[in-house]
């Protein structure tokens, strides 16, 4: 599997590299540390969500409510921070509340998917509609702005370690944690097993419901973290600001080589997928492509990348099928 997955990731590494080289020629600023860090920072929220989505997609599910959940958590957490004193404890509390809220909403998705057996896309579609509606109704779309934020949070948001923003570090930590879970914990292996073969998983005693509730709750947990990262990034909350982000998240995961039918997917691949999308966006502006044409380019690059990837995959499958023929 290792070699095979490697080749799968290699193809996206190839695409990313190709794009980088082209851009480096087109725009001298592209390869500067400053720019690359900006790209990373701008895509950290998508990245955090995509890492969680990877687990769900490996089990063969999908979650289109991620952006809605993140928005809801943003709103609630920030409202909470605004009524709390400007103190370290308040910050801690917010960091506790956000993931918990996310887990709660995620677990609700998980329970509906596993216990009531409603397909994941439907549950989360319904959930997205409900949460977005409620958020809009409650906030009336009003921005919550940094002028209202406690100073301690602003300070937190501005933390940099060796010039790397805290937001990127959160993303990195989340990616590492999830990689570890997937590789080295029982539940992580169960996630992969379920994706590989649901029926067999049940037969060998894996609790399918439990694993599903886990992946959705974990997604919720990361949505909570993403909410913190998002708030730190924009230093404001736009209740409508994340509409439609879920498609980008899913695109990143699948570009990263995960199979939408389940069973296949890696954290490294997903991170690369996120980077690919981020670089496309950044690169089109740096290359000074006419804004009207940027979407055309984005669409074409996505189509080329996925087609290339698929052809590559087919070829590797063909090689697997060979048998030894005597000369």
């Amino acid at each position, binding site marked *: 599997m290792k070699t095979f997955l490697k080749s799968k990731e290699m193809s996206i590494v190839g695409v990313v590299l190709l794009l980088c080289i082209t851009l480096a020629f087109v725009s001298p600023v592209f390869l500067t540390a400053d720019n690359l860090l900006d790209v990373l920072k701008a895509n950290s929220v998508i990245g955090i969500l995509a890492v969680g989505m990877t687990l769900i997609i490996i089990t063969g599910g999908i979650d*289109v409510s991620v952006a809605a959940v993140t928005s809801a958590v943003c709103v609630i957490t920030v409202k909470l921070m605004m009524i709390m004193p400007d103190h370290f404890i308040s910050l801690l509390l917010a960091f506790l509340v956000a993931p918990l809220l996310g887990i709660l909403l995620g677990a609700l998705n998980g329970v*509906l998917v596993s216990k*009531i*057996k*409603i*397909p994941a*896309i*439907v*549950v989360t*579609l*319904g*959930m*997205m*509609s*409900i*949460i*977005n*509606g*409620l958020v*809009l*109704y409650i906030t009336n779309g009003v921005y919550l702005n940094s002028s209202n934020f406690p100073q301690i949070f602003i300070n937190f948001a501005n933390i940099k370690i060796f010039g790397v923003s805290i937001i990127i570090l959160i993303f990195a930590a989340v990616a590492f944690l999830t990689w570890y879970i997937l590789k080295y914990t029982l539940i992580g292996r169960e996630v992969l097993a379920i994706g590989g073969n649901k029926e067999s998983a049940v037969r060998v005693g894996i609790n399918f419901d439990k694993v599903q509730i886990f992946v959705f709750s974990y997604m919720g947990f990361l949505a909570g973290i993403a909410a913190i990262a998002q708030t730190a990034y924009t230093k404001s909350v736009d209740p409508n600001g994340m509409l439609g982000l879920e*498609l980008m998240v*899913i*695109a990143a995961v*699948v*570009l990263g080589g995960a*199979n*939408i*039918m389940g069973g296949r997917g890696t954290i490294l691949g997903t991170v690369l997928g996120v980077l690919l999308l981020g670089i496309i966006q950044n690169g089109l502006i740096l290359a000074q492509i*006419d804004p*009207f*044409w*940027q*979407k*055309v*380019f*984005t*669409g*074409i690059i*996505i*189509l080329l990348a*996925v*087609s290339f*990837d*698929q*052809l590559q995959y*087919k070829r590797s499958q063909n090689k697997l099928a060979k048998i030894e023929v005597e000369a």
Partner: protein
Amino acid sequence: MKAISLPKENILGLIALSVFVLMSLFIPGFFGHNNLNNMMFQLPEFGLLAIAMMIVIVTGGIDLSITYIAALSGVTIAIMQSHGYPIIPSIIVGIIVGLLCGLLNGVIVSKIGVSPILVTLGTMVLFEGIILSITKGNSISGFSEVYSLIGNGYYMGIVPLSMIIFIIMAILTGVLLTKTKWGRSVYMVGSNPVASLFSGVNNSRVLMKVYLFAALLSVIASIIMTSRYNSAKVDLGSSYLLQSVSAAVLGGTEIQGGYGKVIGTVYAAIIFQMLSSGLNLLGVPRSIVNVIMGAILIFVLVLNFVKYKLDEKAQKTAVA
């Protein structure tokens, strides 16, 4: 043996009927001429897109690009007409453009084998970009009077023309799906593409036709929309995208493919339509309408689940 319980489509039909009765009784103005009329005008465009989505879902795919196919063909028709071309050639060119979009989806899905959600995500962005580049984001109008009759006119003074088009297309789709070789193959490919390939079904041709057909339905929806709204723009009908997935699923379509019926999707579209209009009449805020729609979607599926469990029990006791 097979008709111990009602098929889920009939249940949905009953729900639709009861929603209609309840709303007529309790919401003033719901049963009014104006409102009924509105609903009849609003349903066709959404219904067509929902059916298009349903067919693609039956094959185990999804088509995120349908609303942009609609927009692109709408813009084409608008540009042609505003440049003085007559209606029929404009519509034909619009249909061709839409079918080309469907072809692109079809080729990448069926020949290269990329998963549909990715392909259509890509083409969605691509089509949007093309429209933006053509229109510079502006809306294009300049339709002729006759054209606007398609979406706004009546047949025999009572039934909206667009409704008739919708009914015809729905029946046609139903017949194609249940009674033709292609339709049967759609279900087979959706259930198990490997086995259908081993059974002499030309999977890629079946899929190709599915994406072409979905595109065709989108174009027809687009013609109704552009004629109703008198203009075409990049986001024409974009709010219908996820709604059409919801309607297809509420209508009983299996998201993994292999099952789905036109009638179920139509019932679901009607339910959504009535809820939206009824709640509006009640003055419920739009955002809460969304909440209720989401809740209904989940509720009906929970209901299905409960019913399934009950059926299972009933059948067991029947045999034992």
